[in-house]
């Protein structure tokens, strides 16, 4: 394996409390050493990368990605999704199990990992189905899934309605060392809804999804965490009420964590505008107060991770009557530029960005990475914080085009993504 020297960059690695100029020596696919600029001679490595003016970050990890393979390869494949991830600065993604067939057995987990290896791009970590067929009834075989390579379980897209089932999920997932991820939505209350229930749903004559659909589910699930004492992670939190409930649970010492997605931080239901299907996702874009609470929670630590909920859909699902349009937007190539915008607006620090997009996902999922301490995988994201560009659909690596951010001007993006010391 080749050795590589990354020189003169600004290393931002909260796992080591570093935000300073550092050189990194990578060899054998791992970080060998980190030291002051010039500490390693250029000749000591086979290859040198001059990172002058760049940020050197532990590789970004997106813990919420829909890769669509198997079943919907026209929307995204493992290879295209991982290519989009790498282009967006992600060195690893957590793949959601709502494929067709769903990822609810060891064979499917192994097949996903094999597709990931073949893609030779960003790493893929499998999240397996929490229950068989994602029906919220019988648990899948967690140890078998874990042995096959799964790191989390989730019925993302569906909430586990039955609290007794959730209790078993929490207890048994902890025994097997898998993180349970919860899609918190009271389906009875949300049923039929297209967008957030509020001024815009009223104006457009669309059935609404009240904020309480999320809050009800989060509140009940927190009660179940209290009963079980085991960890639970909440996916794509979108409301002030839910983030407040999670903040209170954390203050009580309950083992809950959560993520939100960039679109909830930048857009509101007003962005649905004139029935824009690229502003339709589940949970829906909420109100300004929700967005502001999420921004505050992102800064103060209540939000643990920023994850995209990358959900590719083709024009067949999106370019239709709004009520019939599929929920979801892609996000792998816009997430880091958006997060860098939050840094420029001084809402979060660069270190906090790394916590949200690398360190915390690695810790929550108990996977390698999230750090560039010696011995860690040589997974790095090199960011040019001053590179101005416009996000354009023709530049995207994803097979789908359902982004609400096309045409947006950004400053800052990933310029190199290294996985195991290899540029991808």
């Amino acid at each position, binding site marked *: 394996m080749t050795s590589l020297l990354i020189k003169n960059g600004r290393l931002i690695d909260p796992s080591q409390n570093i935000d300073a100029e550092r050189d990194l020596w990578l060899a054998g696919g791992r970080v060998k050493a980190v030291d002051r600029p010039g500490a390693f001679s250029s000749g000591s490595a086979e290859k040198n990368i001059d990172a002058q003016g760049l940020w050197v970050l532990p590789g970004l990890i997106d813990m919420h990605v829909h890769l669509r393979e198997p079943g919907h390869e026209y929307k995204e494949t493992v290879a295209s999704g991982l290519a989009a991830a790498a282009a967006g600065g992600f060195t690893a993604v957590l793949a959601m199990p709502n494929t067709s067939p769903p990822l609810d057995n060891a064979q499917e987990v192994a097949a996903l990992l094999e597709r990931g290896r073949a893609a030779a791009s960003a790493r893929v970590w499998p999240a397996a189905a929490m229950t068989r067929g994602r029906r919220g009834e019988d648990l899948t075989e967690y140890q078998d899934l874990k042995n096959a390579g799964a790191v989390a379980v989730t019925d993302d897209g569906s909430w586990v309605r039955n609290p007794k089932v959730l209790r078993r999920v929490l207890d048994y997932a902890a025994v097997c060392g898998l993180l349970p991820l919860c899609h918190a939505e009271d389906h009875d209350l949300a049923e039929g809804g297209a967008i957030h229930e509020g001024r815009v749903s009223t104006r457009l004559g669309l059935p609404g999804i009240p904020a309480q659909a999320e809050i009800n589910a989060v509140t009940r699930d927190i009660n179940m965490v209290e009963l079980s004492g085991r960890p639970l992670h909440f996916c794509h939190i979108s409301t002030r009420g839910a983030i407040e409930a999670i903040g209170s649970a954390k203050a009580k010492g309950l083992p809950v964590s959560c993520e939100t997605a960039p679109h909830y931080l930048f857009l509101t239901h007003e962005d649905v505008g004139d029935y824009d299907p690229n502003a339709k996702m589940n949970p829906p874009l909420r109100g300004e107060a929700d967005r502001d609470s999420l921004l505050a929670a992102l800064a103060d630590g209540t939000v643990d991770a920023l994850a995209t909920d990358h959900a590719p859909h083709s024009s067949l699902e999106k370019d239709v009557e709004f009520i*019939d349009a599929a929920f979801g937007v892609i996000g792998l190539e816009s997430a880091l530029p958006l997060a860098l915008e939050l840094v420029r607006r001084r809402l979060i620090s660069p270190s906090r960005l790394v916590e949200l997009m690398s360190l915390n996902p690695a810790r929550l999922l108990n996977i390698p990475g999230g750090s560039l301490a010696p011995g860690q995988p040589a997974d790095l994201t090199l960011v040019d914080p001053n590179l101005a560009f416009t996000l354009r659909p023709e530049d995207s690596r994803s097979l789908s085009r359902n982004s609400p951010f096309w045409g947006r001007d950004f400053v800052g993006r990933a310029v190199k993504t290294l996985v195991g010391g290899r540029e991808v």
Partner: protein
Amino acid sequence: MSDIVRTFPKDLIDLDQFSPEQLTHILDTAENFKEVSEREIKKVPTLRGKLVVIFFHENSTRTRLSFEVAAKRLSADTVALSASGSSLSKGESLLDTARNIEAMHPDALVIRHGASGTPGFLGRRLSFPVLNAGDGAHAHPTQALLDMLTLREVKGRLDGLRIAIIGDIAHSRVARSNMIGLSKMGARVAVAGPPSMMAVELAETYGVEVYNRPEPAIEGADGVMMLRIQLERQTGALFPGNREYALVYGLSRERLKLAKEDAVILHPGPVNQGVELSPELYEDRRSVILPQVTNGVAVRMALLYLLIERPGQAEAA
């Protein structure tokens, strides 16, 4: 005048696209066209050689008939399309429909669709005018205009009127377009209905008064518009039943006493007699339900003419 027409949008999606002056111009034009329907030969050559496609993706009798009559009185050719029996998925059929209609080179498309937002979806993809004949719970601009024309005829004005709209506001495109149009013309709108039939933030969104009992809305009203209770649109029980609805919200002679003495009764039809409107009032002298239908043809003639011909635009260009 030419400014008023030059800035007309390509499509008729909802009344929020128009200024009060433009709405007045539409109503004035409709008033002029009313005379055509009273002639012995009820036809003018205004749109001769023009093709109007009338595509109803949802059942309707009077709106469809009204648009066909309006187009024919203007000498336009009409083609009626209905979506029933299509085996394509909804999404494919809508885009396909748009492409197929475009390929026939019509001069206007009239669209009724159950999904909110569909007329705008088609309007953005088609080069000729699209006229919304009702989309989901979103908008029904020609209905609101015919209501406004009827009120203006009877009352002589819209500015300063107080209009009550009673019923299932949440699911009513008629209510939405009327809240927008009447408010723009200076009328004061009060809406009332059971909480389960009210959309959120109505007051903030439309600048209307909102009540859960009909009495405060009807009090002092110049016009009372009773909405059809559309049980076919409801998922789950929004109200205990028709009898209970009639008891609490139905318009009766007694309840109408709260309105001004010369108040008129409007209804977009078809009426559920004995539910939202007591049978005695359907025949009441204060009912303008049938004049509404007559005015519907005039309003649709005006809109077809204004959007297809765009009079006043040529000399302004």
